[in-house]
């Protein structure tokens, strides 16, 4: 079997704000009707987490379920568990109208942490990162620079950023350069 490698193979830029590509991470796109009891039950049963509210995410530290749109979730889980999860999800949802796609190797995931991580992201996105507006537990799909991305804020104030794998180098470079340039004092 081929040797799976993440987009940037764990590339890290350290400094006051550390940007790290998180390496191989399982990511599964789930689409379906959130109101449907079968769908909600399958998500809860297989992740142990509830379907999150609008623009929120649920996490237990290992698995994370993110709200991506009114009919789309992103499940982040360990890379080794993805195939089993997809199979189980397909079995659980068989017969209903749904989509389960393993996008682990089609996305790149980054951690942005440090004292002014908020400002680093704020420089590159049309999003209000003010602490009272963008609270921990919130997820936002928007863009980083010129490309689509989603970001969410963890309890420790750090962020996770997900983008398409093909633009991983661009996103990493952009965020790392913004971090080097220092804070601007907005947030």
């Amino acid at each position, binding site marked *: 079997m081929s040797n799976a490698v993440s987009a940037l193979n764990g590339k890290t830029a350290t400094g006051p704000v550390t940007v790290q590509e998180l390496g191989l991470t399982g990511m599964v796109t789930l689409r379906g009707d959130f109101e449907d009891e079968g769908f909600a039950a399958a998500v809860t049963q297989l992740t142990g987490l509830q379907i999150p509210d*609008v623009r929120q995410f649920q996490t237990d530290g290992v698995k994370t379920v993110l709200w*991506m*749109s*009114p009919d*789309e979730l992103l499940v982040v889980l360990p890379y080794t568990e993805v195939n089993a999860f997809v199979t189980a999800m397909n079995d659980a949802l068989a017969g209903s109208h749904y989509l389960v796609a393993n996008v682990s190797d089609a996305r790149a995931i980054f951690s942005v942490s440090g004292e002014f991580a908020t400002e680093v992201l704020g420089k590159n996105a*049309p999003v209000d990162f003010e602490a009272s507006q963008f609270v921990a537990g919130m997820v*936002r*799909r*928007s*863009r980083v620079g010129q490309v689509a991305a989603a970001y969410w804020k963890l309890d420790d104030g750090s962020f996770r950023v997900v983008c398409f794998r093909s633009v991983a180098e661009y996103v990493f470079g952009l965020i790392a350069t913004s971090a080097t340039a220092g804070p601007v004092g907005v947030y």
Partner: protein
Amino acid sequence: MLLLQCPYCGVNAEETELAAGGEAHLKRATVGDSDEAFEGYLFMRENKKGVHLERWRHAYGCGKWFLAARDTATLEVFGTYPAQTTEPPADVTENIRAKYPDWSWKETA
């Protein structure tokens, strides 16, 4: 800068996150309709200086299409609403009439 609130995810999205989709509430001409009806459906569009009902897509966000009532001259937004509607909802109409008491939409005029 244009800010529209996406009715699906509640985000106040600015225009670089959005994709414009032209006029809203178009009725599709179908089998058996006249050539004129097809021409109207395909080509005839409102081009107003003033209140305009438009389609927008929250392209970088949740990816959903929604509709917006906007003044093309001042960029004032009167409201946004889900795409699963065949006419502007009452609250949007009210907002428009508060500013333009004589406003009427072509379908209701």
